[in-house]
């Protein structure tokens, strides 16, 4: 019996796979994106002649480069496969433009372990949801109605929110949404100490530090919970202090997991970056940056500390590739050439002559996307329009191999 294609539309902006679609849908995140996308009219439209010229230009650029770099900002699986293929042929490097927020859970995981969960588990099993930070609700505005409501229906006191700012006064444009049963407003600089104090109490330390009323209430609630989850937006927690904070959450989860269940969930709305990272890892064994030395894929330690300005000093040819729309602005990278979705955002100083626009996932390109919590994958079906980034990259590879420009190959590595 033939299997039908999945029919739920997908929004790749927050990673929640909502069933909403179209302009005017009740999602402020999506409306914001559509409004911004409308501003792209001033940029020259894509043409097939421009694509051929761009392929030739990039091929020439890489042919003469000593240290070529393919910078993947947010990409679908096919683009990453093609980029890895290109870097392999070039003896070059692939880098996933990584925020430190996305890397932070990996660092904590690598040092002390990680008790995790996924959004469906939160909806089905959680009796205590602890959201931390100001961005999680603005970056994923439908998170409470989509995933917290079932928990709230089971347990009205299920959702507690810790932030440094009180809720905004104006909510006319936001869809109806459940509210936290309890809000704790703590100055950001106090979070680490307050969480540490809670941890002392959870560990039944002999002389724990005093707690205020809010902390006492939170402590009591955590001790009652059978399945507690800490959630935050990954982009909001980036630096070394934030890392200590997340480690405190992991410490608390470990203590609570002695008698109940407690997990952490860092939501990464940049599904294109998560996709790129996962794909790079299974292809090369490396998550963020991989260079092919002719024998194997490796990474150089100093790249972990690189800022945007450092990359052009090491790499003499940079191709920037974004194939999945995201609300994040294009970084101010000194790239030589840019591949962007048709509705991608451009930095003001990017020369339109070097930009090749490709069909965007979510509107006119099919691709594989991974949800930001790595909980699931969803295929987005749509028609291909024009040349895809994958085809572009394989065309460049073909040029470098002395072959005529061609469409996308069946797999990352061609049969020689």
């Amino acid at each position, binding site marked *: 019996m033939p299997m039908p294609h*999945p029919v739920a539309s997908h929004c790749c902006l927050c990673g929640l796979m909502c069933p909403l679609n179209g302009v005017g849908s009740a999602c402020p995140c999506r409306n914001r994106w559509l409004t911004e996308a409308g501003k792209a009219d001033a940029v020259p439209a894509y043409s097939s002649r421009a694509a051929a010229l761009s392929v030739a230009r990039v091929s020439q650029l890489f042919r003469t480069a000593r240290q070529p770099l393919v910078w993947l900002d947010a990409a679908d699986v096919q683009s990453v496969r093609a980029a890895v293929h290109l870097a392999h042929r070039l003896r070059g490097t692939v880098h996933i433009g990584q925020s430190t927020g996305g890397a932070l859970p990996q660092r904590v995981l690598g*040092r002390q372990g990680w008790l995790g969960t996924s959004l469906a588990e939160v909806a*089905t099993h959680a009796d205590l949801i602890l959201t931390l930070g100001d961005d999680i609700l603005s970056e994923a505005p439908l998170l409470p109605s989509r995933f917290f409501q*079932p928990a709230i229906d089971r347990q009205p006191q299920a959702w507690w929110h810790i932030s440094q700012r009180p809720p905004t006064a104006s909510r006319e444009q936001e869809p109806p949404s459940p509210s936290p049963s309890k809000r704790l407003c703590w100055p950001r600089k106090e979070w680490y100490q307050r969480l540490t104090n809670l941890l002392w109490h959870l560990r039944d330390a002999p002389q724990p530090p005093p707690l205020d009323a809010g902390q006492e209430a939170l402590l009591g609630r955590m001790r009652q919970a059978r399945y507690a989850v800490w959630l935050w937006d990954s982009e909001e927690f980036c630096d070394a202090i934030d890392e200590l904070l997340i480690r405190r959450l992991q410490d608390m989860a470990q203590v609570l997991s002695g008698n109940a269940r407690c997990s952490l969930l860092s939501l990464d709305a940049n599904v294109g970056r998560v996709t790129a990272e996962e794909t790079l890892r299974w292809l090369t*064994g490396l998550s963020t940056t991989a260079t092919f030395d002719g024998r194997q894929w490796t990474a150089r330690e100093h790249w972990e500390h690189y800022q945007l300005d450092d990359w052009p000093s090491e790499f003499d040819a940079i191709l920037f590739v974004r194939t999945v729309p995201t609300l994040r602005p294009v970084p101010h990278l000194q790239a030589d050439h840019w591949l962007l979705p048709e509705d991608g955002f451009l930095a003001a100083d990017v020369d339109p002559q070097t930009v090749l626009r490709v069909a965007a996932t979510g509107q006119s390109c099919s691709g594989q996307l991974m949800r930001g919590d790595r909980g699931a994958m969803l295929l987005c079906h749509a028609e291909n329009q024009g040349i895809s980034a994958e085809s572009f990259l394989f065309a460049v590879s073909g040029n470098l191999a002395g072959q005529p420009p061609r469409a996308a190959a069946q797999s990352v590595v061609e049969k020689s």
Partner: protein
Amino acid sequence: MLLELCNATIVDPLHSRHGQCDSLFVRDGRFVAPPRERAEVAQQVDVQGDLVLAGGIDIHTHIGGGKVNLARLLMPAPPTADSPRAVWPTVQTGERYSQMGYTACFEPAMLLSTARHTHLELADTPHLDTGAYIVVGNEDWLLHALGTGLEDAALDAYIGWTVAASQALAVKVVNAGGISAFKYNQRALDVDQRHAQFGVTPREMIGRLSASIERLGLAHPLHVHASNLGVPGNVDAALATLAAADGHRIHLTHAQFNSYSAIGPYGMGSGAERLAAYVNAHSNVTLDIGQIVFGQTVTISADTVAQFSHRRHAHPARWVVSDSECQAGCGVVPMRYQDKQYVHSLQWTIGLELMLLIEDPWRVFLTTDYPNGGPFTSYPHLLRLLMDHSFRQSMLETIHPQAAKNSLLQELTRELTLDEVAIMTRAAPAKILGLTDRGTLSDGALADLAIYHAADNWQTTFSQARRVMKSGQWIEHGEAGTCGRAECHTLRAAPEFDRQLVHRKFSAPIEQALRMPMNCLEIGSQEMQDLIRRPLVDGPRIVAATGQRGAGNAD
């Protein structure tokens, strides 16, 4: 084009000229009968008396999917000679298997929600036909339905749907009900213990699922990761699990991890003899070993209960234990098996005991449950242990002395023959998966083969095949990503099922749990072809199963 392999020492108990030095003929990707006219032969390759076996088949190896990728995240250090990489990228996985002469491998733990990820990784694994087993038995919606009197027809429809939707080849259950119970803070679920929330027992689930698989006509039996993995005394759970199948075919996976008695030094001993005796007496039972290999590796499993417990032993001290989409869990815990440590030494002896005590080579399969027990590249070493008694005895002297002293390996003098190895690693895996077109060099079979030069020991012989052919094409092994590739496929079962019944019973609870329509989980053939980039091939179906059907001997 007709290819002739001359002077091939044919090692294939299913072949009419098994054991003889003769020619094999390949045309259009298949073995064919000798031609009437010699002139038809377009190309001759003189194998010079080397051993020719069918391509190896690994029925249980974790090579693709979210857990595997998490393991790569946890173990990213560049490999060294002393510390080889615990989990390879996909290209190197395919390369290394192929170099050993393997041509088909199967990922044993795929979840509905992350099936696409699994298939993507398998598609990027070269030189191997692949497939995956869908994990059931811990879904909230299934457990609720079973606990409220789900009828057989609906169960069959659901199982058929999960296999079809995920493009799976077989069905696996991991710690039936136990992973789910842990989400309700129930820390153990023995075979006859009731799930605190849903009221079902693992015994009930195993019985119903194994029967359902037979009714659906799926070739591979229910593939079972038993309860209480790693717990001293768990051989009782393994035996109870096998009995729960009530005579239906059942496959116990990585049996070594479920073969512990509670009697012995440090409260732990070998239950291999009891388990092997049961297997020998029950023709409906098959198992794969899950042999451990000393050294650094990483354990990955959907069994969060076991992994949550094992995280204390993580080496290095980093790990992940996570619940997954109301279907199962995911635990990744690095492990270093040490030959001077009693429990690790005991585990090592148990795996070998099982391999040597089980009499029927058609019902026991060599695996390390890669990477849980160790790297698959250790198979040649393990084969030498099994085929060379004196080598085995010399290795026994290097492990923890109490484990060595108490082990049955002290008395077991059996050496597996080359015929038995060919069965265990080729013909039997093909049979147990229902892959009638491979695992043999006989006419009509897929031309997957490996040529080995007989060295002075079996480890050297099997470490590197001289040449490997996949679907009639020679594989040229080279630097990562540039080797010549044969076209490979994803093998799937395609059971018939009542779609309307599945939707009536399960679409609402699945959508309630996952917050997306049920059909989002369905992977179509076109999607496999165009986006995942791996064409599908249907595995066979056993038609009109009539009760017990053991794996038994070759038909």
